[in-house]
């Protein structure tokens, strides 16, 4: 699976457990209620373990975590720069 598919899979299976809502990679994760602030914390923990990449505190911002698409781009760029 590529990064986007891994993130979509985690969000659907772990963070949206029990909720039958379709999401697309461009959906606003927080604004549309797909996940909440605790979900963001879980997502950061998941990324750090699954991709073996420490997300710097200052990178946990709207621009990088707005959607799965934004997060995928952020991870691609951040990992390339690391």
């Amino acid at each position: 699976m590529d990064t986007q598919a891994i993130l979509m899979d985690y969000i659907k299976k772990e963070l949206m457990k029990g909720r039958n809502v379709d999401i697309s990679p461009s959906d606003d994760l927080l604004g549309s209620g797909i996940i909440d602030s605790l979900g963001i914390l879980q997502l950061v923990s998941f990324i750090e373990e699954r991709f073996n990449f420490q997300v710097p505190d200052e990178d946990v911002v709207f621009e990088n975590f707005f959607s799965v698409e934004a997060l995928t781009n952020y991870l691609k760029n951040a990992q390339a720069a690391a």
Partner: protein
Amino acid sequence: MDFSWSDEQLTYRNAVIEFARKELSYDVMALDRDDQFPHDAWKKCANFGIQGLPFPEEYGGAEADIMTTMLTMEGLGYGCRDNGLIFAMNAQMWSVQMPILSFGTDEQKQKYLPGMCRGDIIGAHGMSEPDSGSDAYSLRTRAERVDGGYVLNGSKTFVTNAPVADVALVFASVNPARKMWGITGFLVEKGTPGFTIGKPIDKMGLRTAPMAELIFEDCFIPEENRLGPEGAGSNIFNDSMEWERSCILGSHVGAMERQIEEAVQYANEREQFGQSIGKFQSVANRIVDMKVRLETARLLLYKVAWLKKQGKPAVMEAALAKLYLSESFVQSGLDAIRTYGGYGYMTEFEVERNLRDAVGGMLYSGTSDIQRNIIARLMGL
């Protein structure tokens, strides 16, 4: 699994216990009764190195790791009877100093950290509002972007250290539509036009840690006083909560240990029906339960610190430790009073104050209900 501490770590713990017994043995009862902040003790702690413990040497700190820091705070809780002073120091160290170290610019670090480590600058942390407590990210304080900075409007409540603070780390939204992504941290200095500190708030316990409201009315904050990027406020807040939970709970462990030792001593000395009350199983069993709670709480806490030292996530473990330890401190306080009987209920025996101080622990840094919500979610419920 290695449960041992290094000689250096134990030296820190023992040194702080000795320091606390020698230098912090003031009349806490009188300060508690009068809601007085112990300025001298704050300064003595800074001179000893408490406020600078985990901070880099270049800012006046000792660069101790989280395990050593937590163990030292445990020693402070054991040796110092003033839970309010310890709470006030924790409020500054983890909720103001650590965010400045993690998110601040070089200028912000140079401006505030050395003074805070020396005890010359006191910091406060403003997050809670009259209408947003557990739902912290629904805060109403606004930061409107203007030329050269921001204009803050709103208020903060339950702000520890506010009446004595020189600077406050305050959270406001630059974009309410973005919810938690709009929350941003600002360093607001005492005396800034439009910034006022309300009258001290009287409370049940931790009375030597002063508390007040912060009020912002068209308060201009220059851009260089923003902490971290716009929208990083929620992460600053979460980051500080993990440190705070680890270290403030460490002092609870120390206080509970002292409480148990004193309860054992009293139970052995106090005689009723021709024998020491500790010989009655109902009394002995109660003290045994205090000990079981202490040791299980200690293990939960050490695991959190160990995970953080490894750089691993500890959201679930921190919530478990916060929930169990804060509730255990309350139960330990009640059990101590039951052991002392009527004397435990009297202020002059300094037993009841621990219970009053402990109750706050079920509320600050995330209530017990919120900790249960976090644990349930992480369990997949």
